[in-house]
C-alpha cells in the first residue's frame, strides 16, 4: 500500500512542529503505523522524502525502537510486562495464558492475524503489577483468566475499558494518537485509581498533611 497524500500532508504538518523537521521522525513513524499497521518500505520512503533524508537513515531509526514493527500487528497489540517485578508477580502466567489462547509466541500474531502478542518491558505501572496493555492502554492488576477474558471480549467485538484510560479502540488508532495526541479521549476513563491515591487517603485517614508546614518560614 502506498502512503496517501493525506498522510504525507500530516507528515509535513508534524515536521513543521519542530525547529528542525527531522525531529518529527518518531511521530511520523507512528503515523505510518496508524495507516500501514507496521513500518513499511513505502512508509519509510515517504518519511525520507518529506524530511529530505535517505531511506537508510529512516530505516536506521525505525529499526531502533521497539514500538515500530516490521510485520503487520493486526487489530490489537497485546503486551504483557514480563520484566522482573510484573513477571514474577504473575506476568509470566498471564503471558502463558495469552500465548495459549492466541496460539502465538512472543512477537507473533495470532493465527487470524487479529492479535499481536508481545512481552513488553516495564510500563511504569509497577504498583499495578502484573500489567498488561491493549493497544498500549493500561490493563492493570491483571490475572491470567482476566487477561484471556479481555482478549475474548475484544475478539467478540465487545467493549473493553482500559483500567486507566479510554475504551479500547485498535492498534492503529493508538498509533495515530501518538502522532496526534489531542484525540478527544482525554476525559475518558479514570486516570487516577485507588493505588495512586493510597498514600493520600492514608495520610488523610491518619491526619498527616504537609499543609500544616508553614510557608515561607526559615
Amino acid at each position, binding site marked *: 500500500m502506498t502512503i496517501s497524500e493525506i498522510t504525507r500532508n500530516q507528515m509535513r504538518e508534524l515536521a513543521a512542529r519542530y525547529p528542525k523537521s527531522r525531529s518529527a521522525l518518531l511521530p511520523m513513524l507512528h503515523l505510518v503505523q496508524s495507516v500501514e499497521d507496521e513500518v513499511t518500505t513505502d512508509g519509510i520512503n515517504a518519511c525520507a522524502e518529506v524530511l529530505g533524508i*535517505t531511506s*537508510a537513515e529512516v530505516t536506521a531509526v525505525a529499526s531502533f525502537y521497539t514500538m515500530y514493527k516490521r510485520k503487520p500487528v493486526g487489530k490489537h497489540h497485546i503486551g504483557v510486562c514480563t520484566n522482573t517485578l510484573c513477571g514474577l508477580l504473575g506476568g509470566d502466567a498471564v503471558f502463558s495464558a495469552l500465548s495459549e489462547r492466541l496460539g502465538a509466541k512472543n512477537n507473533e500474531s495470532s493465527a487470524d492475524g487479529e492479535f499481536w502478542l508481545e512481552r513488553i518491558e516495564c510500563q511504569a505501572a509497577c504498583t499495578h503489577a502484573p500489567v498488561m496493555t491493549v493497544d498500549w492502554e493500561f490493563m492493570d492488576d491483571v490475572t491470567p483468566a482476566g487477561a484471556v477474558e479481555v482478549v475474548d471480549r475484544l475478539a467478540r467485538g465487545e467493549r473493553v475499558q482500559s483500567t486507566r484510560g479510554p475504551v479500547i479502540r485498535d492498534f492503529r488508532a493508538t498509533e495515530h494518537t501518538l502522532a496526534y495526541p489531542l484525540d478527544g479521549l482525554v476525559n475518558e476513563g479514570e486516570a487516577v485509581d485507588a493505588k495512586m491515591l493510597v498514600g493520600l487517603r492514608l495520610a488523610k485517614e491518619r491526619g498527616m498533611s504537609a499543609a500544616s508546614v508553614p510557608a515561607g518560614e526559615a
Partner: protein
Amino acid sequence: MTITSNAGSDLSPQTEMVTVVVDGVAIEIPKGTLVIRAAELLGIEIPRFCDHPLLEPVAACRMCLVDIEGVPKPQPACAQVVSDGMQVRTQLTSPIAREAQEGVMEFLLLNHPLDCPVCDKGGECPLQNQAMSAGRPDSRFEEEKRTFPKPINVSAQILLDRERCVSCARCTRFAEQIAGDPMLELLERGSMQQVGTAADQPFDSYFSGNTVQICPVGALTSAAYRFRSRPFDLVSVPTTCEHCASGCSLRTDHRRGTVTRRLAWDEPAVNEEWNCDKGRFAFTYLERGRVATPLIREDGELRVASWPEALDFAARGLAAATSHGVLVGGRSTIEDSYAYARFARVALQTDNIDFRVRDSSDEEAQFLRAAVAGTAVRTTYESLEKAPAVLLIAFEPEDESPIVFLRLRKAARGGTRIYSVGALATRGLAKMMGTLIPARPGAEGSALAGLTEQVRADLSTRGAVIMVGERIAGVEGGATAVLELARTTGAAVTWVPRRAGERGALDAGALAGLLPGGRPLTDAVARGAVAAAWGVDSLPATVGLAGTTMLQAIKAGDIGAIITAGVELADFPDPALGHDAIEAAAFVVALENHHSAITELADVVFPVAVVTEKSGTFMNWEGRPRPFAQTFKDALVMSDAVVLGMLARAMDVPIGASDVSGIRKELGALGAWAGERAEQPNTPPGRVVDGDYLVSSWRALIDNGVMQEGEPYLAATAPAVTAKVSPATANALGKPEQVTVTGPLGSITLPLQIGDVVDGVVCLPLNSPGCAIYRDLGVRAGEAVAMGGAV
C-alpha cells in the same frame, strides 16, 4: 594514517601548547590534541577500532581505554583531549588500561566468527593483529555465538558479513561525514545492531570502496576482490591514479603479473586517505584487448609486423606526407606528452597538435595558453579547504573530479560557500551544501555577468576560487567571462580537466601554439630557447591547427599523415567527423595499448605501455606533479616516448631523451616560462540556442568509459540513467514515466526524472548505458533536442 590537524601538523604560532606525559614520556603538543594522537607521536600505539583520524570520534568500541591520573575510570584515548600536565598510562604501563583493553577485546571476539582462514582481511586485519597484541590467549565464552546469514550485498560491489562486524561505525561515519552518502547505516539495536541499507536502496556511493578499506575487520569486502588472494601473497606498489585529474595516490597490489586490487594510499595533501570507486575498482582494462605487437596495414588488412619493419613502414609513411598532425589523447603522462610535443615540432616540423579528444574550442585553447599552461601552483586541495567561497562553472566535481568533490564537501562543512553555475542543482551540490546559480546550457558565461552582490563579495574575499571544468570549451564566451570575473574580483582561477593527462599535456606543450612550460610559440625568444634546448635551428613559428579545425583539415586532405595516441573516436563531440578524418588521412600511425576504432583505421599500430608497465608523471589539476613508478618491473611493453624515440631514429631525426628520467631532466632544465604570456581570449558570449529543450550533459563518473570495461560490479553501482527536467518541464511534457529525446542522429527513450533543473533544459548523461548523446542523438551540451512522452 594521516596525521590530521589535531595531531599537530597545523602549527600556527598562536597554537597553545601543553605538556602531556604518556607512559612516563613527556611531549609538548597543541592543546586539544587527542590522547591517542599524542601517544602516536611518541610511537606508542594504543589499540583501536572505531578511531579514525579523518572521522569524528565516537568512542564506541572502547578498545583504546587508558588510565589517566586522577580520573577514576579508564578513558577512551580517541575522544579524550590532552590537558596540561595530564599523566596518561597506556596498556604498556598500566595494569588498569591493559585489563580494560583485554576485557573489551574479549567482548569483541565473543560473537566474531573467527573465520580468519577464509576472510579477505586475514593477514592485514586490525582485529586479528590487536587480538594478538591486546587480547587474552583464551576466551571464557561458552555460549552460542550470534549468527547471521552471510554475506549480504549492501551494493552490487560491497558485501557485508555481519558476523564479523564490530559495530565501530567507521563505514557509516565515512558514508555520512566524508562522502555525504548516508545510505549505509547502523540498523537495529543492542546485540542485534548491524550495518545495513534501506530495503530498496543500495549503498551506491561513488566512494563506497573506502568503507572496505577502513573496515577494521573483514565485515565489508568487495565483490571484485573477495576470495581472490591473501594479502601476504601480494606485491604492493605505490602509484598514481590514471583515471582523472584529481591525482590520487594509490597502492596497486599484484600477484603473478596481474593486478588484484587497488587501494587509496595516504597522501594528506591530495586525496588524504580516500579515492573513488572508479580509481579503486576499474583496472581490468589494463589487460583486456591489448595490442600485443606492432601491426601494419597491407592490402587493406592489418598484419603483425616486427618492430624494425613497422618502424620503417611508419617512418616512410610519415616522410611521404607533406603535412602532419598529432592527436594526443588526454591520458598520457607528462613525459609521453612532452615526447609528442617535441616529435611534432622537430620530427614532423608541425605545430598541428592537440591533446583535447573531446569538445574543444579556440577560445578554450587561448584560455589554456594564457591562464593555465606552465603557471605555478596556486590553488591546492589545502587552499580549497580554507577558501571562503568557491564558484564552479562547467564543472560537476562529484562526477568529474571526485576527490575535488570530497575536499569541497569537507570545506563546505567547515564553512566554505560553494556556488555552481549550471542548469541543475546536482546531488553533489546538495552534499556540498552549495547554491545553484541557474544558467541555461551555453549561457553559463553570461550568468557570470549577472552574479548577485553576495556572490561577488564572496568571490572578492581573499582566498576565493573559481574552478573551471573542461566543459567551458562548449560555452562560447565562457572562458572569457571567467577571466573577467577573476580580474574584477581577484578570485583565483583554476582549471580542472577530467582526464589525468590533460594538465600535463598542456604544460608539456602538446597543444598548438604552445611550447613546454607555457611558452607561447609565437614568442620568438621562447621559440628560440626551446629550439636551442632541443638542438635544432628552428621550430615551426606559425600556430598550428587544433581541435575541430584540425579534424576538418585532416578530413579535407590538408593534413596528410597523423599520429594518434590513446584516441577514442567516440569521445569527439562529432564522432563521425573523427572517424571520417582518420579514414581520410593518407597515413595514420597509432600508438595504442588497446584495440579500438582507431586501430581499425590505422596504417601502423604500435603497442604501448599502460600505467602499470611504465613509470611517469601525471600532473593533477593543481599543477602538482604526481610521479609514479613502474608496477610490473619486468614489463617489456615500451612507453609512447620510447616508441617515438625509435620512430625518430628510423626517420633519422634527433629527438633527445626518451626515457623518463631523461625527459624529466629536459623539462626541468626548460622550466616554466617567465616571459609574457599568450594573449587572453576575448570572445563575446554566444547566442543561446533556440529550442524548447536544451541539453545539459557531462560524463558520469561511472559510465561507458573504455577504462571501465570489464567491471560489472562497478557498473552496477552507477547512478540511474534518466532524463532529468524541472517540474514545470515535466508538466509541459504531461509527466510521462518515460520520455523520448530526439536529436539529429536519432532518439533515445529514458525514464523521466524530476529535479531542480532550469526550465526548458533536459539533463542527460553524456556516455552512459542507453544514453550516449554524441552517438545516439548527435547533440552536445547546449544544443536543442525534441522531447515527448514515450508510449
